[in-house]
């Protein structure tokens, strides 16, 4: 399989290699005192992002439609969104501490995409030929990417007081924290979830408008709709609970981990439900 992908899909392989290399350089930047190592990590991540975009564009041209139909295509787009959100996150917070989990998550998506490789490009059925299709998927996946990075940060937040190495990471400056300021992981998580929640809200509502134009119902209690609502409710609950005393810190971090589990089930677990047979949203390849 690897030889086939290497020969037939070299841009995909190059993207994977760049994310792997950027993860390695980000990890090296944890230790190195040279700023160049951190910059190289960012450069590799940005290059991976560009090639990831190229894979998507290439597929778009080849399929003559937006490449968001199959699980494979969505995973490739998800890895792009994770890298994209992370690069903006790095620029805003001026820290490279979280580059390793971000690159690893993008890499993980591509690895899973490799396992779920499409034997053939499938045609778009009439229901998906809607002007709402592309904005719905794009908004959702950028939102998913934001809460995925929040999940990684929540784990770091939980580990920091318990594992010395992680604690040191958050206080190191060379190559990783370019702002020179101490990191408030909790506040970063809140920003990521706020951003993700806003996009999940739009995605949910756009999906509803689309369902109305295609089937005449804006809500039919389809399993995927329900689980998207569950995702929205869980992150809505998190944003509200953050205003309640005692819900910041560890409890909030655990809630974000639970929220991510819900997101992953909504994305990948629909075929496991007893009601999946009636859903219009289950990926064929699962």
């Amino acid at each position, binding site marked *: 399989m690897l030889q086939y992908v290497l020969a037939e899909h070299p841009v995909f392989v190059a993207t994977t290699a760049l994310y792997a290399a950027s993860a390695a350089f980000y990890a090296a930047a944890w230790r190195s005192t040279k700023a160049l190592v951190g910059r190289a990590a960012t450069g590799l991540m940005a290059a991976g992002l560009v090639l990831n975009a190229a894979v998507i564009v290439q597929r778009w041209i080849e399929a003559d439609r937006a490449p968001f139909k199959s699980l494979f295509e969505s995973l490739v787009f998800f890895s792009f969104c994770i890298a994209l959100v992370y690069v903006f996150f790095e620029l805003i917070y001026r820290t490279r501490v979280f580059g390793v989990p971000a690159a690893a998550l993008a890499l993980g998506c591509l690895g899973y995409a490799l396992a779920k490789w499409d034997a*053939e490009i499938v045609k778009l059925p*009439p229901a998906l*030929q809607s002007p709402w299709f592309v904005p719905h998927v794009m908004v959702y996946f950028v939102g998913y990417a934001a809460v995925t990075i929040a999940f990684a940060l929540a784990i770091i937040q939980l580990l920091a007081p318990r594992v010395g190495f992680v604690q040191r990471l958050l206080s190191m400056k060379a190559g990783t924290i370019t702002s020179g300021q101490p990191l408030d992981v909790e506040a970063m998580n809140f920003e990521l979830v706020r951003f993700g929640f806003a996009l999940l*809200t739009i995605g949910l*509502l756009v999906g509803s408008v689309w369902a109305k134009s295609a*089937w*005449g*119902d804006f809500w039919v209690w389809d399993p995927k709709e329900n689980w998207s609502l569950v995702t929205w409710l869980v992150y809505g609950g998190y944003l509200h609970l953050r205003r309640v005393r005692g819900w910041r810190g560890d409890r909030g971090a655990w809630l974000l981990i639970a929220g991510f589990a819900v997101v992953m089930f909504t994305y990948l677990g629909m075929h496991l439900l007893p009601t999946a047979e*009636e859903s219009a949203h289950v990926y064929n390849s699962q």
Partner: protein
Amino acid sequence: MNSKASRAAAEPSPSQPPAGPSVAEREVRLTSLLVVGALLVGLLLQVWIPPGGFTLVAAAFLASMVLIAVGYLAPGKLRQTIAGFRFIATLLFVLAVEAILGTLVLQMKPTSFYVERYGVAGKVIVALRLDDVFHGLPFALLMALFGAAVIASALLRWPVKVKNLGFFIAHIGLLTSLAGAGASATLSIRGRIDLHAGGETATHVVLKRGKQLLPERAALGFDLHLDRFELVNYEPEFRIGFYEQGTFTDEEGRQRPTWRLKASFDPDLQKHRLPSGDSFRLTGIYPEFQPVPDPVTRQVKYGTASQEWKSPAVAIEANAGGRKIEQLLLAAQPQAVFLGAERALLFEKREQEVKAYVSHVTAAKEGKRTSTKITVNEPMSFGGWTLYQVNYNPADPTYSGLEAVYDPGVAWVFLGFALICIGVFYMFYLEPRLKARG
């Protein structure tokens, strides 16, 4: 600390009045009481009140109004509690659990279905009305608490200031959407229209509940005629498919062999690598294949009559584990090139998939005629109804199934959606800037 001392530390002295529960404790108690109470009361009342759109809307509306009224009129902390973050967060999680429940049990099936499928558990599902979770009273009462919480928390921000406008807009948006959804659930009419091209004109719709057709009909208020039904297919495609043998489990649990498509290629002249590590390339592509005798040698050569993909063939050269295989493959007579016992290449025509279902219809009312087409994602609106393309019959190319929907609530739902989006962005990204400016 000895046991007497620790008891003394834990208990208040007789001279001091006992400390009451903290505000947080009171909120937790009241929240638990309201949420658990709503679920239990709902479960009990639905023994007599069956689930349904009207049940959901009426119960949710009445209960939320009562709760708001009690919150404002009665002394105590009810109003502050239901407007609080703790209450709404709890409610959001309970609603999430309820939504999950609705995905674990198939909804709105006939009673016999549950008994046949789940046995004794099926009877419990029906008794607890888990067969229609989203129209039952427990859900309705939770929605009542949600509505009351949204109203109470929005009113807490009254009079609205520029700095907290986002919260207010988002919550008004939620209420508008809920009101629209309520109107939609109670006032909307939906049904099915079966038409045949050039056949009878439809004047009525057959009503539906969920996915089930009802015996009742409703007047459309106009005449609808199907002029033509068109099934648009994607262009035919010819591919080189690489298959590997695998197994699948049949209905009786036995392992059966099957061939699975692992990779597929456009017919081109490049060399391609296969997932098995083998390779192939096409040495000739003949869109309209025909054997051509060489005028000199009189040997038959491969050729094409035109560049139109009518009866294509390809000449293939495969390399399987160092073994070279050359073969002519015709799409009309699929023949595999076996690269080994469990892998093969095939030149094949793909099934033509449906690209669009198009109903060309004419609607007429009081001398006014409108001719248009209806496709999936492009419904037609006429006379207060919206008509959607939902069905076709491959055995009858003249048939088209349309869904007719009259929904006076949907405009409010979408207005609410717009307000939610505006409110959320204002709250998250404008308010912090306004507050920072002072």
